């Protein structure tokens, strides 16, 4: 059953990602981003990483994209003042370079062998929580400092100059 769902959700994630980068209005992009993030969460569930699937939906779809939508509505750029996308030689070159990057990673991925274990419970809440609070406790605690810095930075940057 896994291959069917992998192809289904992989196609949804890829299609959503293509729509994110091709839509003209950022609001449409944000909605397609939610679609992609949900499809990736479903892929996490396929790999038995239930904790990360939940976190993916809560943090990404629930917090990050809401933040994006909030800012899109806050600055509310009129339709006719959105940046006009022109195809310049440099842009085409950039897209070709990105395509080569995908190709290169695909070649490396094909050579990358891993033992074919059935999906283990290493992504369960218990396993991740145990690793997070024993082996990676310091990194986990430092994460809070990063978030505090981000909060202070965001407030300092976005507030009006007194």
């Amino acid at each position, binding site marked *: 059953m*896994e*291959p069917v769902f*992998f192809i289904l959700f*992989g196609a949804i*994630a*890829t299609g959503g*990602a*293509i729509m*994110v*980068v091709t*839509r003209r209005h*950022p609001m449409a*992009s*944000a909605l397609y981003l939610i679609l*992609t*993030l949900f499809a990736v969460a479903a*892929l*996490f569930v396929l*790999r038995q*990483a239930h904790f*990360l699937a939940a*976190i*993916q939906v809560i*943090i*990404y779809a629930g*917090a990050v994209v809401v*933040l*994006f939508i909030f*800012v899109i509505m806050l*600055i509310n*750029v009129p339709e006719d003042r*959105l*940046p006009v*996308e022109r195809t310049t030689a440099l842009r085409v070159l*950039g*897209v070709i*370079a*990105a395509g080569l990057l*995908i190709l290169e*990673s*695909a070649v490396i991925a094909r050579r*990358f062998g*891993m*033992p*074919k*274990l059935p999906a283990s419970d*290493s*992504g369960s809440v218990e396993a*991740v929580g145990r*690793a*997070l609070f024993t*082996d990676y406790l310091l*990194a986990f605690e430092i*994460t809070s400092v990063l*978030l505090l*810095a*981000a909060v202070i930075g*965001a407030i300092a*940057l*976005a507030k009006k100059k007194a």
Partner: protein
Amino acid sequence: MVQPSAYLLLSAILFGIGVVGVVARKNVLIILMSVELMLNGVNVAFVAAGSYLGDATGGIFAFMVMTVAAAEAAVGLALLIALYRLKETIDITELRILKW
């Protein structure tokens, strides 16, 4: 049974689409969203590797990437609001006050 390389391939595709968004778009909001896409592509590789190797470390790294992504979105959007207040545009080619 899906091969591990299939997940890595999907991860590479998501990352590559994110790169296209960053290099080819002019809208700052869409560029920031493309960065999120790239981080998500990396997460797919981390989770797949962690699950195929039976090690929780892959999940931990994906967790850290999500934290960084959330912080990056908050600071990036705050910068965008400050810039919009200053220049009234979200066109990346017009935001060049640091360019000499």
